[in-house]
């Protein structure tokens, strides 16, 4: 096949996945949060309110593109894309099946977290360029939070990487095939349960969801860094948030829950992407469940929790697991 066409097709598939995910996740979030709180959620537009997000997107697309007079025009315009592009790039190394990925990268996990670490820069830019104190506080909080929680996030990822001996997502998924003792699925979540809990908490913070959404704390900062944005610029910020949610859930699936593989039985090739998406959506549901259950932390509590609890726990776990694996390895070769 012509290489240009192939690149285009892969690119378009990525865009389609991202946009469809955004639309589905926004609807899902509102429905799930509604039912967690004994409410209904959207139910007016279309059957069961299914067309609500479509309508919202049309509204965002047709809205006037406003910019505050005192804003720094160049930074203000470019910031939503700086938030959006990294979360778009993080789709590249995801493996949806044995042969199904945008491209195979030997350092895929590293690439995902490297590009996601660019998000705080865009968010801070948005907060600063809006020239509003609420936006600035929101942007600063978001940057501080994301930089802090990236450390336990990366440390918790090290466990599965050590077990698989590779940073290639497809190798990590392949290492989780089969069973232990014949009946326990060989998923890394079982030996890495501490790592997984740390990963889940940091992922929740990294995507700025409620217990950790001080950056947009609507009761104090209105919507934080997104405050002065409207129309499709706001749409990009919002879409990036939901796309990040999908990415951290997908990475969690790949690292801890066997990726596209069904437990116990051989996964047929056509079913792999569906299994992967299903597992990812279960992960996303859990994140929404936490979002609907827990009240927001205070900003100092959130940072203290990260620096004084999560980082020591995950560091200790990395060392402990390295020792365990080394000893097991030496026992195996003797």
């Amino acid at each position, binding site marked *: 096949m012509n290489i240009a066409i192939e690149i285009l097709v892969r690119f378009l598939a990525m865009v389609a996945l991202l946009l469809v995910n955004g639309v589905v996740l926004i609807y899902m979030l509102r429905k799930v949060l509604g039912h967690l709180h*004994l409410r209904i959620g959207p139910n007016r537009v279309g059957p069961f309110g299914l067309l609500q997000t479509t309508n919202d997107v049309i509204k965002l697309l047709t809205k006037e593109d406003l910019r505050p007079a005192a804003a720094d025009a160049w930074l203000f315009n470019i910031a939503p894309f700086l938030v959006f592009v990294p979360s778009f790039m993080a789709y590249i190394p995801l493996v949806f099946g044995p042969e199904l990925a945008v491209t195979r990268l030997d350092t895929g996990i590293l690439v995902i977290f490297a590009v996601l670490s660019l998000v705080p820069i865009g968010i801070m830019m948005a907060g600063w360029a809006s020239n509003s104190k609420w936006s600035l506080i929101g942007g600063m909080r978001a940057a501080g939070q994301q930089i802090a929680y990236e450390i336990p996030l990366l440390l918790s990822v090290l466990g599965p990487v050590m077990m698989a001996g590779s940073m290639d997502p497809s190798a990590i998924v392949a290492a989780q095939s089969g069973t232990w003792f014949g009946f326990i699925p060989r998923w890394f979540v079982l030996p890495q349960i501490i790592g997984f809990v740390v990963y889940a908490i940091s992922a929740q913070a990294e995507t700025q969801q409620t217990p950790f959404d001080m950056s947009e704390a609507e009761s104090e900062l209105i919507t934080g860094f997104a405050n002065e944005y409207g129309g499709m610029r706001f749409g990009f910020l919002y879409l990036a948030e939901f796309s990040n949610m999908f990415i951290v859930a997908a990475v969690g699936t790949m690292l801890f829950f066997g990726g596209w593989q069904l437990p116990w039985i051989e996964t047929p090739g056509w079913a792999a992407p569906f299994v992967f998406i299903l597992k990812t959506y279960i992960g996303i549901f859990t994140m929404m469940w*936490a979002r609907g259950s827990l009240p927001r932390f205070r900003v100092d509590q959130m940072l203290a929790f990260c620096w004084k609890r999560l980082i020591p726990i995950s560091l200790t776990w990395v060392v402990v697991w390295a020792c365990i694996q080394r000893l097991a390895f030496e026992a195996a070769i003797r």
Partner: protein
Amino acid sequence: MWGLGVLKGFGITIKNMFRPVITVQYPEQRLPIPERARWAVHAVFNEDGTPKCTACLICVKECPDHVLRVESSTRPEGGKHIDTYVYELGACMMCGLCVTACPYDAIEMSHEYELATRDHSDLTRMLLFDVDAASPRRTPREDAAPAPTGTEAADA
């Protein structure tokens, strides 16, 4: 144990997923409103269609917001004639003092609660217009009871 409350909260919310919703979808579904709810003031009529109002103006004097206005005249053969009984709904705070004060139960707090209008002038209502007022002698107060006996007074 530390963190147990968080898990308990998760349990409550996941149980909520399977409980019926408490939302009442208002225009289609309505809850019954309490019997003594106080909404817009309505005039009360006798069975033959004549108003119970005697134009005594006690409600007008009692109203803290001055939303009631009664214009009355004396008929040549005696008795009062109500020209207009105007009620400014937009300024009413539904306190119910006029209804409490009325000695003839001629007005009531109704259950009409959907009070939004498209036009400001609709907020000024004519409760009574160009009718003869009731004569207090002809229509005595309905709950006028005989003088309380000693035991009732003690209960009170």
